C-alpha cells in the first residue's frame, strides 16, 4: 500500500530542516561569554572559523532534523492508500440513517427483537467511509447516534433502547432523518425504516422530503394478526353520599384477534391494593364491559387501576386514574317566584344528568342565599327573574367579584336596576319576536371561547337545529371586559359575557326552557348547559388520566388544577425544588426553571416537594395512547413514496467514483489510520532524547572547560 498525503502542501515544511542545522551551527558557540582583554589574536586564528563551521554533535543534529521531519510529515497527514477500498467507492460514501420505531406497540410479541436485529443488520455492512445514524422515534424523534463512522456506538445504543410508552408518529423521526441527510457532506444517502408500520401513526401530511436520490429501505416487523385485548377506558359513575362520594367503575374491554371467546379476570386496584376481581368473556374482534361494585372515595388523590391479564401487548392491559372526592360544581338555580320549580325543569334536569355527578344543585325558590351559603356556591343561575336590588344585589356583586359565576337567563322577567348596570355586559331591552314560525337560529358562535370550543367539531353538537322564537333585545356595553359569545341570525346578541373582578357574568337573552326556544329539546342542550355552567364556575375540568406523551407544567396552577392537583398546586408552584417519581421508580428534579414534567411512562407520577413525606402523595395518572393498540399496518411503499425516496438499497458499486467520493474516502482512510498521531509521538520522543543528550554533552563540555583551565 503506497503512502499518500492528505495535505501534501505541508511537505513544503520540510524546508524547516535547515532550522536545526542553522541553530546547531550558530547557537552552539553561544555559551556564556568570557571577558578577555583582547581578542586580536583570537580573531587572527584560522582554526577558529573552521571550528565554527564544523558540526560537532552529529547525533544532536540528527535528532533535531528527524524530529522536524516527523512533525512536518504529521501535518501533511500521511496515510497508506488502499486501492481496493478506493475502487469500491462507488457513488461515494453513504450517509445511512436507521429509523427505529420504539412506540409501545413494538413490544408486541417478538417485534422488538426483530427490529433490533434488523437495525444491527442495517449497519453491519458499513463501508470505511460510510456514516450511520440511529434515530429512534415514537411521538417524537431522537438521534441516539448521529453520523458515526462505524457501527460500534449504534450496537451499544441498541443494547439499551427498549420500547417506550408513547404512540407511533412517523413525522418527527422522518423529519430528523431528513435533517441529518441534509447536513451530511457524503455523496449518497440511505434510510432504513424499521417499524411495525401502523397506519394510525401516519397522517400523510408530515411534510418530510428526503434529499433527491435517497434510497429508502423498509423493514416491517408487523407479524400479522396479534390477539390483543385491551382496556379501552374506564367510566366512573359518581354518587354523592354526604361528604363522601361513591364511584362505580365500569371498564370497557376490546379485543383484536383471536378465534374464540376468552375468559379474563379484570382486577380493580385502589391505591395499589387489589379491591375487586371480575370475570369477563371477551369475544374475538369484539368488546365487552365490566362493572365493578361501587367504591367510596374517602381521600383525595386515590389511585385507581383496572388491570387485565398480560398478553402479547401489555401496555394497554392497565388503565390508571387518580380520583378525588368533592369536585362537583355547586350551582344555585333561582327562578321567578311565580314560576316555581316548573319553570326551570329543563335546566335542573340537565344539570342533574351527569354520570360523574359534576354538578350539585341547590335552591328551590326565588330567595338569594345568604352570605355563608354563597361562599359554598360556584355558580348562581338567575332564571327568568330580575337581579335582586338593594342589599341582596350588593351581596351577590361581592360574591361575583370574589370569583363567583353568575348566569342570568333573561326570559321575560330578567332585568337589573341602574345601580348594577356595571355588573352586566350590556343592557336588556324589550322582547323581540322572531320572524314567522321558523324562528331564528344561532349563527355567530365564538368557537374559540371555552363555552363553545367543545362544539367546534359539528359532530359534538349542532346548534343550527335549534329555533329561537323570542328573545330580549340586548345592547352591548363598551369595554374590554365585555365579549359577545353567540349571536342570532339577525346579528342580535344571544349570549354575552362580562368579567367582573375574579368572577364572570353571562347573560342569555332567550330562555333555557321550551317556551321561547326548542333548544332544550335538542341533543346539544345538555352539553351546552354543562359547559356554560362549568365555564361560569371558573373551574377547569379535572383530568383524571393523562395520555403518555403529554407534558405537565407543575408550576402552572391552572394546569395542576386540571390535573386534579388544585389543592397543592400553589404550594408546588411556589416550591423551589420539586421531585417527581416516575412509574418506573426513577426520580426527576423539577427545579424552578425546569418545571415541565414529561409524562412519558405509563402509570402514576408522584410529585412532591423534597423532604415532605406526605401521607398521600400528589399523583398524576398516565395511560398509553389506546390508538396505538390498533395494529393495522400501512403499506411501507406509501410512506416511501411520500417522503421522496426511492425504494431499494441505492445505486452502489456500479458507478465510477466521483471526485468528491474519492476525496472523502481518502480523508476517511487518513482519519482511520491517524498516522499523524504516531509521528507526533515519535517527534516528541526524539525531542526528549535530544534534550537529554544535549544536557549530557553540555555537562561534559563544562567539565572539559574546567579541566582545560586547571591544566593551563
Amino acid at each position, binding site marked *: 500500500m503506497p503512502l499518500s498525503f492528505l495535505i501534501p502542501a505541508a511537505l513544503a515544511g520540510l524546508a524547516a530542516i535547515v532550522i536545526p542545522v542553522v541553530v546547531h551551527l550558530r547557537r552552539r558557540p553561544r555559551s556564556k561569554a568570557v571577558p*578577555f582583554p583582547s581578542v586580536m589574536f583570537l580573531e587572527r586564528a584560522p582554526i577558529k572559523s573552521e571550528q565554527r563551521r564544523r558540526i560537532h554533535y552529529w547525533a544532536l543534529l540528527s535528532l533535531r532534523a528527524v524530529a522536524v521531519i516527523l512533525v512536518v510529515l504529521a501535518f501533511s497527514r500521511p496515510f497508506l492508500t488502499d486501492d481496493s477500498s478506493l475502487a469500491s467507492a462507488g457513488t461515494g460514501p453513504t450517509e445511512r440513517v436507521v429509523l427505529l420505531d420504539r412506540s409501545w406497540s413494538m413490544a408486541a410479541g417478538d417485534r422488538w427483537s426483530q427490529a433490533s436485529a434488523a437495525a444491527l443488520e442495517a449497519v453491519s455492512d458499513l463501508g470505511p467511509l460510510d456514516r450511520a445514524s440511529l434515530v429512534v422515534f415514537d411521538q417524537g424523534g431522537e438521534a441516539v447516534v448521529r453520523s458515526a463512522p462505524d457501527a460500534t456506538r449504534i450496537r451499544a445504543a441498541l443494547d439499551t433502547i427498549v420500547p417506550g410508552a408513547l404512540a407511533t408518529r412517523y413525522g418527527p423521526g422522518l423529519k430528523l432523518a431528513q435533517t441529518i441527510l441534509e447536513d451530511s457532506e457524503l455523496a449518497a444517502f440511505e434510510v432504513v425504516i424499521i417499524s411495525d408500520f401502523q397506519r394510525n401513526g401516519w397522517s400523510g401530511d408530515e411534510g418530510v422530503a428526503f434529499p433527491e436520490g435517497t434510497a429508502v429501505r423498509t423493514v416491517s416487523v408487523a407479524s400479522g394478526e396479534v390477539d390483543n385485548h385491551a382496556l379501552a377506558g374506564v367510566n366512573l359513575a359518581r354518587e354523592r353520599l354526604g361528604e363522601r362520594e361513591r364511584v362505580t367503575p365500569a371498564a370497557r374491554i376490546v379485543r383484536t384477534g383471536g378465534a374464540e371467546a376468552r375468559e379474563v379476570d379484570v382486577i380493580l386496584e385502589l391505591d395499589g391494593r387489589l379491591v375487586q376481581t371480575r370475570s369477563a368473556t371477551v369475544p374475538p374482534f369484539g368488546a365487552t364491559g365490566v362493572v365493578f361494585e361501587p367504591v367510596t372515595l374517602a381521600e383525595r388523590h386515590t389511585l385507581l387501576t383496572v388491570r387485565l391479564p398480560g398478553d402479547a401487548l401489555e401496555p394497554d392491559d392497565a388503565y390508571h386514574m387518580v380520583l378525588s372526592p368533592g369536585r362537583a360544581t355547586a350551582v344555585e338555580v333561582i327562578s321567578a317566584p311565580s314560576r316555581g320549580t316548573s319553570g326551570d325543569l329543563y335546566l335542573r334536569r340537565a344539570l342533574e344528568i351527569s354520570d360523574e355527578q359534576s354538578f350539585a344543585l341547590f335552591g328551590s325558590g326565588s330567595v338569594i342565599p345568604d352570605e355563608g351559603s354563597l361562599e359554598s356556591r360556584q355558580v348562581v343561575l338567575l332564571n327568568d327573574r330580575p337581579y335582586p336590588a338593594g342589599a341582596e344585589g350588593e351581596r351577590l356583586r361581592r360574591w361575583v367579584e370574589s370569583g363567583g359565576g353568575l348566569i342570568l337567563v333573561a326570559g321575560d322577567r330578567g332585568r337589573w336596576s341602574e345601580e348594577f348596570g356595571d355588573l352586566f355586559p350590556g343592557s336588556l331591552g324589550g322582547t323581540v319576536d322572531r320572524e314567522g314560525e321558523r324562528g331564528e337560529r344561532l349563527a355567530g358562535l365564538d368557537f374559540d371561547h371555552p363555552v363553545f370550543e367543545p362544539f367546534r367539531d359539528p359532530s359534538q353538537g349542532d346548534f343550527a337545529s335549534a329555533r329561537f322564537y323570542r328573545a330580549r333585545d340586548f345592547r352591548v356595553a363598551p369595554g374590554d371586559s365585555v365579549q359577545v359569545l353567540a349571536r342570532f341570525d339577525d346579528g342580535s346578541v344571544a349570549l354575552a359575557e362580562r368579567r367582573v373582578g375574579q368572577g364572570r357574568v353571562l347573560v342569555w337573552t332567550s330562555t333555557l326552557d321550551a317556551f321561547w326556544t326548542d333548544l332544550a329539546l335538542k341533543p346539544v342542550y345538555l352539553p351546552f348547559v354543562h359547559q356554560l355552567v362549568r365555564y361560569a364556575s371558573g373551574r377547569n375540568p379535572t383530568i383524571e388520566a393523562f395520555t403518555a406523551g403529554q407534558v405537565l407544567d407543575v408550576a402552572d396552577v391552572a394546569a395542576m388544577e386540571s390535573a386534579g392537583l388544585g389543592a397543592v398546586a400553589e404550594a408546588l408552584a411556589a416550591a423551589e425544588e420539586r421531585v417527581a417519581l416516575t412509574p418506573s421508580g426513577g426520580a426527576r428534579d423539577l427545579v424552578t426553571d425546569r418545571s415541565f414534567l414529561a409524562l412519558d411512562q405509563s402509570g402514576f407520577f408522584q410529585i412532591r416537594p423534597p423532604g415532605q413525606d406526605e401521607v398521600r402523595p400528589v399523583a398524576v395518572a398516565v395511560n398509553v395512547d389506546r390508538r396505538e393498540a390498533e395494529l393495522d399496518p400501512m403499506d411501507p411503499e406509501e410512506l416511501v413514496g411520500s417522503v421522496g425516496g426511492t425504494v431499494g438499497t441505492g445505486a452502489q458499486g456500479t458507478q465510477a467514483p466521483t471526485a468528491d467520493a474519492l476525496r472523502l474516502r481518502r480523508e476517511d482512510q487518513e482519519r482511520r489510520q491517524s498516522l499523524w498521531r504516531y509521528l507526533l509521538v515519535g517527534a516528541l520522543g526524539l525531542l526528549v532524547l535530544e534534550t537529554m543528550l544535549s544536557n549530557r554533552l553540555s555537562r561534559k563540555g563544562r567539565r572539559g572547560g574546567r579541566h582545560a583551565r586547571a591544566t593551563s
Partner: protein
Amino acid sequence: MAHARARSDTSGAQFLDPRILARIDNLELLARTVVNGFLNGLHRAPHLGLSMDFAEHRAYVPGDDVRHLDWKLFARSDRHFVKQYEAETNANVVALLDVSGSMAYGSNPEITKLDYARFLTACILHFSRGQRDRVGLVTFDDGIAEFVPPSARNLDLSLHTLARAEASRPGALRPSLLQATERLARRGIVIVVSDFYEEPDSVLEALRLLRGRGHDVIAFHVLDPAERDLPGGDSTTFEDMESGDVVPVIPTRLRAGYREMVEQHVQTLLERCTAERMDHVLLDTSQPLDHALFRYLMIREKKARSR
C-alpha cells in the same frame, strides 16, 4: 613561574608578592615598603646615581658667584678658582599608565593587570623620588585621563591619582602618547606601563613619539598568565573587554597557536624597541615586583653609565 615562587620564598622578598601587596590599600606605604625591602635585599646605598657631580675648576672672573670660590685651593695657591659642576640636576621620571579596559583583566581575582601596574608605578615613582627625581604620572586609555606634571612635590598627588585609576574605556596608544609628548616638554625618563594590545607597528609608532623628543623610554609590558596561555575548554566564547567583540573559539584546539602568536608579539616588541633604543620589559602579574624593579634599576644604571 617556578622562579617567581623561589623568590617569594626568600626572607623579605615575600612582601614583593603582588597578591600580598594587593592587600595594602595605601600606595605610599606599599611603595616605601617595597622599595626599602628591595634595596635592603640588594645591600646597596639608598641613593644611587649622581645628581651634583664635580666637573673642573676655572679661574675666577668678575661676576662669578663668590659662593662657588674654592677657598681651600685659594689657600694653597693664593689664586681664585671657581668650582664647576655637571650641568644636569634631577631627572624627570614620568610614568604613563595604561588604564584601558583590557588592564582590568585578571585571571587571579586578587590582582588585575591594573593592580600590578599600579603597584609597579607607585614603587618606581617612590624610588625615583628617593633619587631626588621629579616624578609625574599620566594615565591614559584612548587619550590622557589624568595628568600629574613631573615635580619634586608631586609624589603624593601621583600616588593618589594612581589609587583612583580605573580601567574601563577602550584604549588607543598613539593618540594618548602623542598628547603626553606634547605636554612633557622637558626630557626625562618615561615609563610606559601597558599591555600593548596593538600591532607592533602601531605600538612602536606611538613609543617613537616619546623617543623622538629625547625621552628615555622604558616599556613595561604587563600580561596576565592566562593571557599568554588562553583559558577555556572545549568551547568558549571570549568577549573583548574593550570593544565588546565576541569570538567563539575552541581553546583546546587554538591554544598552541595562540601562545605562539603572543610570544611572537612580545618578541617583536622587544626587538623593535631595542632597535629603537628603547627598553622593553615583559612583566607577568604572577611574578614578584622585585623582578620589575630590578630590571628598572639595571636600566637606570646602564643609562647613567652611558651618559
